[in-house]
C-alpha cells in the first residue's frame, strides 16, 4: 500500500522531463519553420528564374532574328542595357559578341609532334608521321585548315546574353553561335 501511494505522489513531471519535452517541441517547430522558409524561398527563386530565363531567351531570339552587323568593330564588344517596359525595369541585359579564334596550324602541329614542328623527329620535310595512318602531307593539311579557319572566323560568331536582376543580382545567361549572313564561304585552294 505504501508502495502504491508513493507511486501516485510521483506521477507529476520533473523539471527535467518538462524541459526535454519543450526542447523536442522547439526542435520540431523550428524544423518545420525552416522547411517552410525553404518552400517560400524556392518558390520565389523559381519564379525569378523563370522570368530571367524568359527574358534571356527573348533577347537571344531577337538577336538571331535580327543579327547586328558583324565587323571588326563589333568583335569583342560588351554592352549592358536595361529592358524597356514597366514590368522589366529591374532587369538589365549584357550582350557580348566575340569572334571565334582558332589556333594556327603550326601551333596545333607543334602540340601534337613535340616542341616545334620543324624540330620534332616526326616532321620530315613536307610529310610527317601521325603514328597510325602513315605519312600525311602537312602542307596540304595546312592549306585546307587555313581556308577553314579563315571562313569560320569570318562567318561564325559567338554571342552571349546575361540577364541580371538589378536588386537581387540573380542572373541567367545563354550563349549561341550566330551566322554572319553577309559573308559567303570562299575557298581558294589551288593545287
Amino acid at each position: 500500500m505504501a508502495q502504491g501511494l508513493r507511486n501516485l505522489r510521483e506521477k507529476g513531471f520533473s523539471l527535467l522531463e518538462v524541459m526535454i519535452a519543450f526542447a523536442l517541441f522547439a526542435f520540431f517547430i523550428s524544423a518545420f519553420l525552416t522547411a517552410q522558409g525553404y518552400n517560400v524561398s524556392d518558390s520565389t527563386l523559381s519564379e525569378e528564374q523563370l522570368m530571367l530565363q524568359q527574358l534571356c531567351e527573348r533577347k537571344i531570339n531577337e538577336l538571331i532574328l535580327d543579327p547586328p552587323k558583324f565587323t571588326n568593330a563589333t568583335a569583342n564588344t560588351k554592352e549592358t542595357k536595361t529592358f524597356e517596359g514597366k514590368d522589366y525595369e529591374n532587369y538589365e541585359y549584357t550582350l557580348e559578341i566575340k569572334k571565334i579564334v582558332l589556333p594556327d596550324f603550326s601551333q596545333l602541329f607543334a602540340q601534337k609532334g613535340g616542341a616545334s614542328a620543324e624540330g620534332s623527329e616526326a616532321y620530315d620535310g613536307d610529310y610527317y608521321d601521325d603514328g597510325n595512318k602513315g605519312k600525311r602531307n602537312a602542307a596540304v593539311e595546312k592549306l585546307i585548315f587555313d581556308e577553314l579557319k579563315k571562313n569560320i572566323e569570318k562567318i561564325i560568331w559567338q554571342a552571349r546574353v546575361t540577364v541580371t536582376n538589378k536588386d537581387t543580382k540573380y542572373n541567367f545567361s545563354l550563349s549561341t553561335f550566330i551566322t554572319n549572313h553577309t559573308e559567303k564561304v570562299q575557298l581558294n585552294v589551288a593545287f
Partner: protein
Amino acid sequence: MSHSNKPLRQRGFTLIEILIAITLLGFITLAVVNITEDSIRTKERTTEVNKNNLQIETALGRFEWDFSQIYSPLYFSSLMQFKAPGSVDGTADAGSGSGTASTAATNINLQNYYEGLVQRFERNEHFMGVSKEGFPIPRFASPDKAEFEFFTASNRRKLENSKQSHFAWVRYSLADQEEDPDAEENPEVPKGLKSLVRYFSADDPYSEKKINVDGEIKGSVLLRNVESLKFEYWDYAKRKWQSTLKSVVGGESVVRGVKLEITWYDSAGHKRTTERIFRNHWPMVLPEDPAPGAATSGTTSGTTSGTTSGTTSGTTSGTTSGTTSDDPPGS
C-alpha cells in the same frame, strides 16, 4: 483511512499553478495556431503562383512546339520556275530540267506533270503553288491579329498504322469561353473574356479546305480568361515586326519569327501580360540584303521572261523573295 487523507490532499494544484499552466498553454497554442495558419497561407500562395506560371508555360510551350516545326518547302527550296499554263510562250522550260539536254518528249511529259501539280495546288485556300521539287507550298494565314494558322510537321501519330503523317494544320486563336462550373468565381476577373484555343487537323493535310472551326474540329483550350492576343511576324527584309503576314515580304509562305503578346487574368484576379518571341528550327538561308543594283535588275528581268538565266531569281516574285537562297540552282 487516516493515512490516505494526506496524499489525496497533495494531489491537487494550487490556483497559482493552474493560472501559470493555462497562460503557458495559451501562449503555446497561440504560437502553434499562428504557425499552421502561416503555412497554409504560404502553401496556397506558392501553389497558386506556380499553377499560374505552369498554365501559361504549358500554353506557350504548345505553341513553341508547333511553331518550331513549321513547314514549308520554301525554307529549303525555291518556287518552281515554270511558265504558267496558258501563256503565249510555247517553249516553257521547267526550271530544274533546263540544264540537262533532255528530249522534247520527256520535257512535255514533265511539263504536263508539273502543270497538273501547279493546277492542283495553285489557287486554293491552303496552298499557293509548288516548289521546285513539286512539293506543295502551304499558305500561312493571319486573318486578324489574334489568329495564326500554319502548316506544321509537329504531329505525332497516337495510334500505330493510323493514316496520319507528321504534317498538320494548326490554328491558334481566341474563342468565346464556356462557363466552367467547377471554377470558383473570382469577382476581380471581368466578364466576357475569351480563351486561347488551338485547333488542329492532321487527317487530310493536303486538302484545300481550311480548318472548319465550327464543324468537326473541336479546339482544345490552352488558357482561360484571355483579354487580348496579338501575333506579330518578323520581316527580315525590312527588319521590323509586322502585324499581318501579308505585309511581311514572302510571309505567307515563310515565317522566321513570331512575337506573341497575350494579356490574361490569373486565378488570383491579377491582369498579366506575357510577351514572347519564337523562332523555328529552319536554318536562316536568306536572300542578300536588299542591296542596290542586283535586286532591282533581278526583278525586272525575272518577271518579264521565262528564261531567267544569268540573273538572280531571288526577287522574281513577291512570294519567293524572302526565301530563295543566293544562288538558285536553276539559274
